[in-house]
């Protein structure tokens, strides 16, 4: 042993936080996400015209001092609609993924843990759901539930669930063969504790990555549902519905598509960087 005193060991939580802070990409991702969340929350306080206010003297105007992001086909301010639309889009992205994870991960873990007929039933139903294309399934569910943003989120969440069932099941099967799971059984650890302390922490990195990727898909899916009148109800804005309308005017008014597109791109990038950073920070192995 060396004569150097043992350094004071940081606590577990602070260790993850220290690692997170050291990663520039994770901080950037966090900053982007926080920025958009703040915009969404502060929308009513920001000095912009209402998102549904039309100005018939300024239809499809190029960006100017009065309308920094230009105006749309009925003279609404694009910047204002983007700020207000951030609420619907972020909600659609985050909440539907949370629904998908909350339903899919327990089912997948159950299938991988119990195996046998439990696995057979869950896996067959999952395959049946996967057989229908994601968007078609979401549209069918949303149509069944009725048009509203909440129902759209539920529909998207349920449609995205099969991916998480499969991922969680496969990861659980892999973790179950690890020696440390056998060591837990040798000690007499019960089923719930085993799932909680051994399986969930070890299957969670790929789920975090999949979750951040699915947020992007969910935002786009909300756009599609809005386009069909099944998501955000007009005139209330969402980035997806803005994009859908803008595609009709791509040659005359490209700014109508450009800014919502950039916003979706940035949010997805932000969530991805944040997710990667979280995964690395919460892994005790690499420093």
């Amino acid at each position, binding site marked *: 042993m060396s004569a150097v005193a043992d350094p004071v060991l940081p606590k577990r939580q602070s260790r993850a936080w220290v690692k997170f802070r050291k990663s520039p990409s994770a901080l950037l991702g966090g900053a982007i996400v926080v920025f958009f969340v703040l915009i969404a929350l502060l929308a009513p306080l920001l000095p912009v015209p209402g998102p549904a206010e039309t100005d018939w003297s300024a239809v499809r105007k190029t960006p100017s001092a009065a309308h920094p992001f230009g105006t749309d086909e009925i003279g609404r301010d694009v910047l204002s609609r983007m700020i207000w639309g951030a609420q619907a889009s972020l909600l659609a992205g985050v909440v539907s993924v949370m629904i998908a994870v909350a339903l899919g991960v327990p089912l997948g873990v159950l299938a991988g843990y119990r195996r046998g007929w439990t696995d057979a039933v869950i896996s067959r139903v999952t395959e049946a759901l996967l057989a229908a294309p994601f968007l078609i399934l979401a549209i069918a569910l949303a149509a069944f539930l009725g048009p509203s943003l909440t129902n759209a989120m539920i529909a998207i969440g349920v449609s995205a669930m099969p991916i998480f069932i499969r991922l969680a099941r496969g990861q659980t099967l892999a973790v179950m063969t690890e020696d*440390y799971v056998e060591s837990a059984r*040798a000690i*007499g650890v019960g089923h719930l504790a085993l799932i909680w302390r*051994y399986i969930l922490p070890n299957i969670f990195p790929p789920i975090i990555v999949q979750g951040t990727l699915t947020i992007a898909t969910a935002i786009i899916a909300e756009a599609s549902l809005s386009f069909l009148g099944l998501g955000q109800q007009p005139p209330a804005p969402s980035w997806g519905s803005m994009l859908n309308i803008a595609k009709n005017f791509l040659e005359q008014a490209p700014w109508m598509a450009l800014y919502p597109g950039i916003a979706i791109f940035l949010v997805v990038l932000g969530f991805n960087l944040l997710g990667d950073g979280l995964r690395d920070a919460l892994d*005790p192995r690499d420093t």
Partner: protein
Amino acid sequence: MSGTPILEARALKRHFVTRKPLFGAPTVVRAVDGVDLAIAEGETFAIVGESGCGKSTLARLLVRLIEPSDGRVAYQGKDIGDLSEQALRALRAELQFIFQDPFSSLNPRMTVGALIEEPLRTHEIGTAEERRSAVARILTRVGLRPEHADRYPHEFSGGQRQRIGIARALVSGPKVVIGDEPVSALDVSIQAQVINILEDLKEAFGLTLIVIAHDLAVIRHMSDRVAVMYLGRIVEIGTADRLFQAPAHPYTEALLEAIPIPSVGARKAHVAIEGDPPNPIAPPSGCRFHTRCPYAADICRTEAPTLRDVGDGHQAACHFSGDLALKGIQPDDVQRTPAATRRFEIYSAARAQADPITHQDPSNREETPHAYR
């Protein structure tokens, strides 16, 4: 041996189905094929055999980590095969297991403290406060420091990790500990250290220790009795001294031949066996060892020998045990050079002084977590 054995196996079998075609007979591996064992309280019992002979399967059967195909295991006279899941889980506080690979057998996402505390937590032994101090105490006993409790397994070396595994197995105050090749994944230089710790703790905690190994040299000095396994069956069983000095089965002789003797000319003729063990899916007829046995005769190909007494409770499953003059290893075969002897003496003297884990007064029992029960 007197009284009820602490752990007993009767006609224990475990067959694995490797392939099950739609029509026809399934392919079955007879990993453990009829094993009888009786382990006395307080002894160190070693099970040796080459890779694939079923010794790890046997170890797992003894604590019902896998279910037997047939036969039974009794702990303190009670059949553990009949226990409910709940009762079996409760029993695991007394029946612990040390795993072979210290790199894969510790959950990478739990701190060392949480890993070692887990058996106490699972069996609700002591308060949170008491558990923490029990973890600190057992860490010191295996030669680590209490501060190590906040670190993660990946921050430790193989030997240190195996000591964490030992601490985890011992913290709940078990009566029987089974080590599945506890040192074979470690460097040779670390093996002795871990074995010393196991021996010292066995002494201090009054354990019954069952050690699985493929290397006779490793278990030679630590075990009281040794069982030799070949293709799912025990071929010889007896006290360590007798088995090493006067083996009664040709396979044991061959295993002993494989131990290097560090002295020039110590060995003249070789009776090394050749080839791989036969396929356990289709074991040979008669004596399973006849395909590789240098002494095989006609009877060996047709008739399977059973374990029979060759004196003093020493048993061997060979038609010719007693008739063959098999070579063992005599204690004076292994001689150290004077320089090496001096080094070892200095080392053990230093260890006796410096290391608080070892050479401790065995009466100091209340130090152990038994006190919490």
